[in-house]
């Protein structure tokens, strides 16, 4: 009886663990993360193009981008490539290429945060441009087109 209860408890905890890692959930999480990155990127571009000037906000967006992009590859576990996702199969078939592209975004966002902290307008502009290049480059190869 006791062993039976333990077995059931063990099974239950396994199911809840499996539930937490369900690909559907992970895909939703990944999309939320990407929306957050896009939001900070769009906000930063509005500040850098001189459309708005909320004091201190550029650093906030730059730091957020650095943190959000610190481990993008972790958002793409094996098996999260079906259903409502625009992630292409190339992510997993060309994992090393994808990891490199994700790493480029990490480097570029870190450099952008550093440039913003440094305060030189020319450096900030160049670093932000580089961030955009890495977003665009990775999406071009590894994301299905919008429809």
């Amino acid at each position: 009886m006791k062993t039976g209860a333990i077995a059931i408890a063990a099974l239950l905890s396994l199911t809840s663990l499996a539930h937490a890692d369900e690909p559907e959930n992970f895909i939703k999480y990944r999309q939320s993360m990407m929306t957050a990155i896009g939001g900070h990127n769009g906000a930063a571009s509005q500040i850098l193009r001189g459309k708005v000037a909320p004091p201190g906000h550029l650093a906030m967006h730059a730091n957020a981008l650095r943190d959000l992009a610190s481990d993008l590859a972790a958002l793409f576990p094996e098996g999260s490539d079906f259903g409502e996702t625009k992630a292409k199969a190339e992510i997993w078939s060309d994992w090393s290429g994808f990891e490199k592209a994700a790493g480029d975004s990490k480097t570029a966002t870190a450099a952008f945060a550093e440039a913003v902290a440094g305060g030189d307008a020319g450096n900030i502009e160049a670093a932000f441009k580089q961030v955009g290049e890495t977003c665009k480059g990775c999406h071009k190869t590894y994301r299905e087109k919008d429809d």
Partner: protein
Amino acid sequence: MLRWPALVLLAAVSVAQATDGEYLLNAAGCVACHTAEGGRPLAGGRAFVTPYGTFYSPNITPDRETGIGTWSRAQFVAALKHGTSPDGVAYFPVFPYTSYRLMSDQDAGAIHDHLQSLEPYQQQNREHDLAWWLGRWMMKLWQWWNLDPLVPMPVTKDPMINRGRYLVDALGHCGECHTPRNWSGVMVRQSHYLAGSKQGPDGDAVPNITTDRSNGIGKWDADDLQYFLETGALPNGDYAGGLMTDVIDNSTSKLTAADRKAMAAYLKTVPAVATP
């Protein structure tokens, strides 16, 4: 002795022309379509999935066997602006001559000169994979039926708007993807100019770029547009996808800021039309 300055002058002129041709080649977006994914630029082979079958762009490097190395300037201009190959065959309108016909002969010729100055690259063209009912011979009829007498582009008092229209319609041929087509593949310019298409070159829908505020880009200001043409970044922080990424990388990002400004200014004048 007098000859030397003349020669130097000649060299300077030809360099200026080559640069001009390269700029026009970029503005006309040749590279995006005439380059296969990961392939040699301008050697062709990119696939276009359409309701009429899958088309493959040809090699336009000056290779004499597989490219356009034997073409004369006049033949190139006829191909680009009238959709007629040097041996008299009519091209499918997947090649955007219905837009390029608005280009000046001078600009078309400059693109020819630039292409001929590049390194030839041998790569055999891939046959189109056409729908069963479609034949190339029909294109002569299609051209006869659909190519209206050329109306000169409307001219406004603002030279920037005029330049923008030339970049958008003649060189950039934006409407080839962003204007929907009727059953026979003709752009529905009269009623749905730039209003988006369900059937884009990658088989996906293409967005409405009229000033319609809910379907189009009416909420973008000219600066958003310019910034997009330069970087590919949308106002919401996301990036363009599909063929548009190549258009940004190979064409609009390589234009002068003044030309991007002109394109944006012109696009802001396009009447709002809901997506069909």
